[in-house]
């Protein structure tokens, strides 16, 4: 699988923690779930790595591959940005979708990847997330969505805004049929993604310290004309204000997801 090759290619590399600037081998970081062994900072992780962490080994089947973005507005710099992002990540765009099992429970999964143009949402991201919900509706299975995004991809103009409604329509259908949708808000979940499918889950989990908000901090500061608290728009902040169900540390995520999936399984008779 491409994904094993990808991991192999990176496993001898070194990565530096953005907070404490200490260097670690990828192997070491993978073992630590990309939580900095020195300072506990939650590092942002790519889509493949996330799937590797959460989904049962060999159960993941990716779908909606081979979709790529088109610079249909001939927007300044978009083609170059796409080429660079594809080269840097080895991915087609900013989301990976598929189905698999988490501790044996089948589900559809999408993982947004902030390394790809800050996981901004254009036609490809919207289409893949929509297909994830359509697949899950058809198969009556839950969706687990890992969100991360700078917002709508302005290089695709109004069509990127419409992706918010397109995905929401698919979430609605999935929900109307009684299916479960769990969101895991990861760093950073902002803008149009927050204002659509990131906030439409039945159960909303967040990673510690993840940035979660709608408007950008600088814009809010300009509007408010005052300094904002350090924890403004953090996972802890949105939990306190009632917009997340729980903050789940990375090492507890599989257990939490498993319990939620178990409690939503179709056979519910007591033993």
């Amino acid at each position, binding site marked *: 699988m491409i994904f094993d090759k990808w991991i192999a290619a990176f496993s001898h590399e070194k990565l530096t923690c953005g907070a404490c600037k200490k260097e670690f081998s990828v192997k070491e970081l993978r073992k630590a779930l990309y939580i900095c062994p020195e300072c506990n900072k939650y590092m942002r992780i790519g889509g493949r790595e996330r799937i590797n962490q959460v989904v049962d080994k060999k159960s993941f089947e990716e779908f909606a591959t081979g979709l790529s973005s088109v610079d249909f*507005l001939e927007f300044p710099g978009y083609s170059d940005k796409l080429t660079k992002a594809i080269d840097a990540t080895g991915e087609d765009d900013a989301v990976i979708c598929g189905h698999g099992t988490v501790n044996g429970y089948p589900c559809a999964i999408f993982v947004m990847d902030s390394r790809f143009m800050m996981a901004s949402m254009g036609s490809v991201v919207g289409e893949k997330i929509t297909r994830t919900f359509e697949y899950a509706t058809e198969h009556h299975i839950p969706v687990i969505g890992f969100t991360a995004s700078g917002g709508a991809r302005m290089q*695709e*103009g109004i069509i990127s805004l419409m992706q918010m409604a397109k995905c*929401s329509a698919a979430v609605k259908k999935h929900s109307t049929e009684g299916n479960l949708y769990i969101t895991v808000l990861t760093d950073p979940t902002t803008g149009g993604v927050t204002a659509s499918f990131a906030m439409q889950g039945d159960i909303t989990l967040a990673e510690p310290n993840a940035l979660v908000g709608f408007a950008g901090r600088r814009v809010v500061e300009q509007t408010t004309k005052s300094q904002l608290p350090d924890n403004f728009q953090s996972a802890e902040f949105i939990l306190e204000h009632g917009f997340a169900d729980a903050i789940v540390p990375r090492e507890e995520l599989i257990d939490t997801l498993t319990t939620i999936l178990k409690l939503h399984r179709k056979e519910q008779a007591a033993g």
Partner: protein
Amino acid sequence: MTPYEKLKLTRQNGRPTGVAFINGIIDDRIELHGDRRYAEDAAIISGIGSLDGMPVTYIAIEKGVDLATRMKTNFGCPKPEGYRKALRLMKQAEKFGRPVVCFVDTSGAYPGAEAEERGQGEAIAENIIEMLGLKTPTISVVIGEGGSGGALALCSSDRVYMMENAVYSVISPEGCASILWKDASRAEDAAQCLRITADDMKNFGVAETIIPENYEDFAATCAVIKQNLKDDLNELLKKDTDTLLEERYLRFRKFGIYEENGETHGTVAYAL
């Protein structure tokens, strides 16, 4: 007019705001206030009324017409409580089987600290998903600025009309220019790139109808909107709920231009 000139026109003093459209189109109006959760938001004016005898729920973003009213309405930037009030009235319209008509004019949802604390993103997300499932017809008219998610929260409808000079955009041209060129003064170039005009929306399938603007006679402009609303709502009211919802699903499902295994997909045959 260039796209940027149109944008400036939508922000110009004297351009009719939400209130003028409601007064010109809806009769027997009863304004209804508050979200029943936190507060009333003057940036959204909503209520019930009649469209030539057809009961409707109306929801309009109001920018204000002078400094006092603009301060009160936050220059037409709704807060979460405004969106939640709109949703409350939409659910009420669904209960009584009456259509919803929205008039949209905002540079965007209010980006203040308290709006973030009260879940601006969640409020918009909830409006979008609930509008998409609303079991009654919905039509939105972009009368001035259709600013990003703050506009989409009232535009996830069966039909969208654009006033001839109205604009609809994923980001303000100023915001786009400052991200792209670190220079907000290049908004004019950004407006060109983003494709924000009524004609663009029609080409993309984002809007079905463009309403001509008659500056000498606003009543005549309102009469045209009214006729379109009546015709479309009469047609939409004939559909059974499943058909209405499925057609609304497909209306949004079609958006997206991308390549799949070498083939270009997307319903928009858009010529630059």
